[in-house]
């Protein structure tokens, strides 16, 4: 992203207030004085183009009372059921007691087939056009990786007839669900935060699309929804979580949520189910019997950019000492 892009997009979205701690609330006060009409007239305020006044003015997810939350869920359910012509359920299942999620990816197995990428798109209602992929699979020279992984050298555009290719190394990257997440720390509106089970979530109705979080994320894991979200009705996944896979409005940032709509029901994320080589592992870090604990205790693991001390909950590991 160039500096001028960032300026152009950020200014109208943060409204009259330029200060770093400009809050959504402060912004709304300013907006009230100039009037909502003027606001939606700002051409690059992407948010305003798909203007849903009730979503826009609702409280932050974390401040909603039980009754208010219930009302929001039913309203959103109705909105999407109507839009897509099928029964949509929107839950707000909270974190489970005694659960902190961890993810494991076996780099000695991954073949770079990208089946996880598209399983994620389907499950999480990612926009098809403009295309958004929450998972990017990077291809590296195996030789180079032996000296250390430098994400910037990864190529996401490889397209041989078959994978894996001799001499290549594949590394899928999505949100690392950092303990010290730089993204949530820079968010001016409190629209993104870490839940007690470790999932870093986004309240899409509070996101103003300033993209500070994208600049702050060292893993390139956050994605900006440029256009009207485009998911064909027959492909919509109707099992939604309010801070998970509800279709995002235009002009907000989105990313992996560990499939919050599935995992908070005890199910595996969609990418785990899709992986043909069984490289993807998921479980409760607090449970000594879980697969994630097993691999942390029995396998060689690493995290990306450990020097930044973001403390990811996404662990890469070598399931086998045999290299292909």
């Amino acid at each position, binding site marked *: 992203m160039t500096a001028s*892009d960032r300026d152009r997009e950020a200014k109208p979205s943060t409204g009259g207030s330029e200060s770093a701690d400009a809050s959504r609330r402060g912004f709304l006060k300013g907006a009230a004085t100039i009037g909502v009409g003027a606001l939606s007239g700002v051409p690059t305020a992407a948010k305003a183009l798909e203007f849903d006044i009730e979503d826009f003015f609702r409280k932050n997810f974390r401040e909603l009372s039980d009754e208010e939350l219930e009302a929001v869920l039913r309203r959103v359910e109705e909105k999407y059921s109507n839009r897509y012509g099928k029964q949509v359920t929107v839950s707000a299942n909270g974190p489970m007691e005694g659960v902190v999620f961890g993810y494991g990816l076996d780099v000695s197995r991954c073949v770079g087939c990208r089946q996880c990428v598209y399983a994620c798109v389907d499950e999480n209602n990612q926009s098809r056009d403009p295309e958004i992929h929450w998972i990017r699979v990077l291809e590296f020279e195996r030789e180079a990786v032996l000296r250390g992984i430098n994400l910037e050298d990864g190529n996401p*555009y490889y397209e041989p007839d078959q994978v894996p290719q001799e001499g290549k190394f594949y590394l899928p990257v999505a949100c690392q669900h950092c303990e010290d997440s730089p993204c949530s720390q820079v968010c001016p509106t409190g629209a993104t935060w870490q839940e007690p089970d470790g999932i870093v979530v986004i309240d899409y109705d509070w996101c103003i699309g300033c993209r500070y979080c994208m600049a702050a994320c060292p893993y390139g894991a956050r994605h900006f929804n*440029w256009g009207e979200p485009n998911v064909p009705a027959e492909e919509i996944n109707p099992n939604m979580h309010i801070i998970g896979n509800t279709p995002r409005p235009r002009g907000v940032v989105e990313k992996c949520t560990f499939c919050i709509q599935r995992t908070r029901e005890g199910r595996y994320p969609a990418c785990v189910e899709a992986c043909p080589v*069984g490289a993807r592992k998921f479980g409760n870090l607090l449970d000594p019997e879980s697969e994630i604990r097993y691999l942390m205790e029995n396998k060689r693991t690493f995290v990306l950019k450990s020097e930044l001390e973001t403390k990811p909950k996404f662990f890469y590991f070598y*399931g086998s000492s045999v290299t292909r």
Partner: protein
Amino acid sequence: MSSDQTGPEGPSPPSYQLATWVLLGTAVVLVVSLFGVRLEQRPETTRDYPVRAQVPDALAVLMPAPPMSDEYMPCSDCHAEEPANRTPRELEDDHDDKKLAHGDLWCLHCHSADQRDYLHLADDTLVPFENSWQLCTQCHAKKLRDWRAGVHGKRTGHWRGEKEYRTCVACHDPHSPAFKPIAPKPRPRRPEEIAGGSSAIGEHAHDGL
């Protein structure tokens, strides 16, 4: 527990073997419930091999192995009458599609010579095809441990709750078990392929990292 063919990690630590035996009692009950039908079909055996009793997990469901190839016919249709030919050789009639690329194994390391519809373990215990994982893990003991823990191979369903296990043959052809290359799904679009100009390029250039 038998030897480990998977390389440098060495044999399982004693604590694991102990746990194995502790688990055995409950495991046998589980095997009966999971494989009840199959157990009845299994012929009388002289000894119970420990490996076989180790079901992965109390909440485990073993997914059936994928169907055999289209040409599959009950082995005994042809073999019941013929005496086994135990000489390792390249097969020219009927099984010329089975080109072994599995260590230096020969057919009869796995297939029973006298009861061709079954596999057999090192101690001659017969194992039906559906339970072939018991054969594989006899030689690949380290993999058994990882597989039970859900770390080698694949579990689907629930991280908390019922787990569906894929058995070894779901991913490995026993005759040439190395993973076969597959076609990748389409790559993401490059920045210059995306309509919408410079701002879109910004997003993707950043993503590309």
